[in-house]
């Protein structure tokens, strides 16, 4: 399965998800599909990148 992470836009609080490989460790800015704000992963209000293989998959998404 493609690995993704959910993010939350710091401008409009819209939530969407992104390809982990393309963005999680990169400097490329995400683009919010709701308000077109460009922001880095580090600026995300929320990050949810749990996978089935995580031992702690029952933990809730991280709030930043």
């Amino acid at each position, binding site marked *: 399965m*493609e690995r993704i992470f959910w993010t939350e836009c710091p401008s409009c609080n819209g939530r*969407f998800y992104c*390809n982990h490989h393309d*963005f999680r460790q990169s400097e490329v800015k995400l*683009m919010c*599909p709701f308000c077109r704000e460009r922001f880095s992963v580090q600026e995300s209000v929320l990050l949810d990148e749990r996978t089935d293989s995580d031992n702690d998959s029952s933990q809730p998404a991280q709030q930043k």
Partner: protein
Amino acid sequence: MGQDLRAYLSRLAPGVSGLTEVDRSVSPHDFEVTALLKQLDDRQKYPAVLFKNPVDLYNQPSPFQILTNLYATRSRCAEMLGLSSDDTRGSLARRYARLSGTSIAPDVLSQDAPVHDVIWTGADADIGRLPIVRHFAMDMGPTLTMTHVMRAPEGHYNISFAKTFYKWHPSEMVVSIHTRDMSRIVREYAARGEPAPIINVLGHHPAFHLGSLAPNAWGVNDYEAIGGFLNQPLRLAPSVTWGDRFMVPADAEVIIEGEIPPERKDVCDPFGEVARLYQAQCLRPIFQVKAITFRRNPIIQDIFSGFADSFPLGAIPKEAGLETALRPLFPNISEIHVPSSGCGVYVCYISLRDVQDGQVEAIGQAVFGRIGVLQCVVVVDADIDVFNEADVLWAIHTYPSLKDDFLPLTGDFAKHPGERSGFGTTRWGSKVVINATRPRHIAFGLRSEIPADALARMKLSDFMPNI
């Protein structure tokens, strides 16, 4: 005269099973097209819909019309490929398989290509002047959903569906190249440090687009392969941007000519994909617009992805590939169907006459070896109609042992269960074969049936003529 979209549309009957025209103005980028299509789907009505008065991305009345939902029934797909509207079952896949093996050399027009009736270049070639559908709530933005053509440095043309995303820029989009061959062409041009020419064909005879889904080998000239689907030579003309170094379909409705600059990417997606999940935001190549050319009274085609409009586009080529690959190996195959419930992507139903021991798992291996994106194969007896999902689900709910007859395939299949994920993946973690044939190794009940002679004798029309 070449085969084209408007000649095809002229043969469609008006109405709910054919072509429905909408005169009122709609704003496609404000979800107004898909909002109406969804309500048709809720009512299980699947006309092709021609929106005659959409606005463009600047909210101005547009000369372009939008045609969508064209592929939403297998009956129309059968007619597109020269069959009767009743040929919706295996004969449709076998027809597709036969056409896939046919090749007709294109005709070249030196002048008067219909798609060059109007030519926009420079500042006129502004993508915002087109009406473009924004389909789903989380979509990145308005998205073009039809076929693209690229030409490999070696010289052959490759045609494939790909999405192109509007980026609120008059001449720059992002194209979601995802096929093996188009990705290779982009890489080859990048290795030379050259931009890759690409065109977006936004409307043509529907057999052109269906034919673009045939999985041809590297090096095949897809313009010749499309001729087989059209049953006549595809007419080509020199492009506006590259002349005869890149030929374009002369009878297309609208073509955007552009270039992919080496190594430049930008974000695209989310987009509600064919498997009814949003594709995750990712990085894809830039598409720099060079020219927009179109016929008078142009029609832009669009696909209502993840709904009935996209399912036959996934299903028919897969069924065709399986017909070709499996029947020689398993002569007792009755029928093959890739159902809409699996979005034409996940699931395949196969019925067998006189099932042999070990055959079910062997069929699963053969299916997954041929088409990696499929996730589940259900094998049933020939008395189960694979084109009737209620029938197949009855067999699944009745015959298999949960312990013994749900067969997850391991090995390479388990390592890459959703290799082409983004669309076409499940969370099962493996490929699964379900043996939903009637148990033969134990005493087991028999399915109730009405005697065949009674069914033949008692005509519904004789007793209930109004039904």
